């Protein structure tokens, strides 16, 4: 693991939505082979930050480097092509499509017939079913069924299965254990560690500092669109980090002053 060259480097990132200043001068590095917990209260800017990384939002100012190269155009297609897979909370699944079609949306396997790209349904059904069932899809639900019929946990399992299946370089998990049972939650956490051990960068977003402290190598805390803490889990306890979240930036300012 080379800590000198970050896989993703964010420098002085700003993002405005009209008059609202969503991200304020955020600078942070992410390295391959590390699991970073991105923590903060609602509205802290965690999801907004990762939406820049996965190409949904284009920053108003600042720079983003991926593997040393500056990213000039932001689009989810480009991010996916670079190997950034995101499990998002509110988007990512189309209710009207089947599980298999959702699983492969945007990277459909095709078989050429007279030059025409036709969907490889056999592969789509077989692979999506096999992968998603590991994460809690009921046996009586067919992968041809529409996502609309799935429970919250099953919907999450489709997103997680999709992120795991495609061999990526970065997996961003935005509250991945929401709606999951205790066993499924453990499974997801184990998986995050496995991905990290395989050399992937895993960014894990959550409210639960204690849960992510057990897993992460590093914790980045955000508040009101700013990064207020970036600390190794070896040097800071979960309790100390919780205090940072509770008191906001004030505790960090006091500590830096000392």
């Amino acid at each position, binding site marked *: 693991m080379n800590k000198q060259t970050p896989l993703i480097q964010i420098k002085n990132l700003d993002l405005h939505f009209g008059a609202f200043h969503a991200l304020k001068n955020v600078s942070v590095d992410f390295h391959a082979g590390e699991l970073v917990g991105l923590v903060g209260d609602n509205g802290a800017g965690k999801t907004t930050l990762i939406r820049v990384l996965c190409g949904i939002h284009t920053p108003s100012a600042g720079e983003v480097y991926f593997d040393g190269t500056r990213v000039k155009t932001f689009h*989810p297609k480009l*991010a*996916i092509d670079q190997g950034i897979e995101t499990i998002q909370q509110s988007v*990512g699944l*189309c209710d*009207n499509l089947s599980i298999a*079609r959702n699983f492969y*949306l945007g990277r459909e396997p*095709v078989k050429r017939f007279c030059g025409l*790209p036709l969907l490889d349904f056999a592969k789509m059904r077989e692979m999506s079913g096999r992968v998603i069932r590991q994460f809690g899809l009921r046996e009586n639900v067919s992968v041809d069924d529409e996502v609309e019929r799935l429970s919250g946990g099953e919907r999450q399992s489709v997103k997680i299965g999709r992120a795991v299946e495609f061999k990526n370089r970065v997996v961003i998990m935005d509250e991945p254990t929401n709606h999951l049972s205790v066993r499924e939650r453990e499974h997801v956490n184990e998986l995050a560690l496995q991905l990290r051990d395989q050399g992937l960068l895993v960014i894990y977003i959550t409210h639960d500092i204690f849960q992510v402290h057990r897993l992460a190598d590093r914790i980045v805390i955000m508040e009101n669109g700013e990064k207020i803490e970036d600390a190794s889990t070896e040097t800071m306890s979960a309790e100390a980090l919780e205090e940072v979240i509770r008191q906001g930036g004030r505790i960090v300012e006091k500590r830096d002053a000392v």
Partner: protein
Amino acid sequence: MLKSEIKRLVRRHTEIGILFISLCLVLLFTLTSEGRWANAYNIGTILQVTATLGLMTLGVALVIGTGEIDISVGSTFGIGALIYLWFAVRIDPVFAALLAVGAGALIGAFNGILVTRTKTPSLIITLGSLMIFRGLAIALTDGFSFSVPYKERDGFSYSVLGGAEFLGINTGFYWLVAGLAVLLIALKMTPWGNWLLAVGGSAASAHSRGVRVERIKLSAFVVCGVLAAFAGTLEASKLGFADGSMGRLMELQAIAACVLGGCVLAGGRISLPGAVLGAFVLSSVQSYLVVTGVRPQWFILLLGLIVVFAALGDRTLRRWSLKN
């Protein structure tokens, strides 16, 4: 067990409702018209009308699939017919048809670019283009009509383009069958179809998976324009004349056929065979009114009632199918 299988079937095939309606109407019309509706000549006429309306409906269904709407297709139909007839007497009708279809593609691109670039609701943009191109059609014809005399319309090109019959059915109908087959494959079996339905289902989710939402919408508008102009070409080839009012109100019929066929106007759920069956039902109703001597003015009223009841029925059926 059987009930759950039926529910699954209804969930996956939105055209089941219109199939049932079609069968009931065919039975009703056959039994109550004393042979005036169910005879070879009349069925041939219904299929010819279904061909042009059906092709237009297929395009509208694709646009509805993306969550947008195109109400300008009636004017595109008229422009297609006029361009075709203008050129058909000067160059080979096949090239004239290509020019008409090209004009349809341009109108579709005009709609699609304005909708995707300006983020203005497609209802407003296509309402504008409905009037722009209707106005253009009226201005072009200047109160007259474009025509090709019957004796000049006996060549192979005219025949293939809806100007003649093959096995007792207008050749336009074969174009409809071919169009339906091609689009069905594109929609159900290619990545493009998956993207189109994803955009209609949730544009934000499709975007987050890397789907180029604006390009997909634009492509649907272009295909819609092409099909509407081609439908106009087939109609002009059959009739041999066209004036500035050609295709008026057909946009309403096309949208009604889509709704009847199980297409959800919010997007993401469409049935192309259902939309074509919807066009068949509307053509059949129109024909039934004619053969039974009912004044054709009642058609629009009947059309409205059918659409309202079909939409309510479809909604009820879908809710039932989703209940566990």
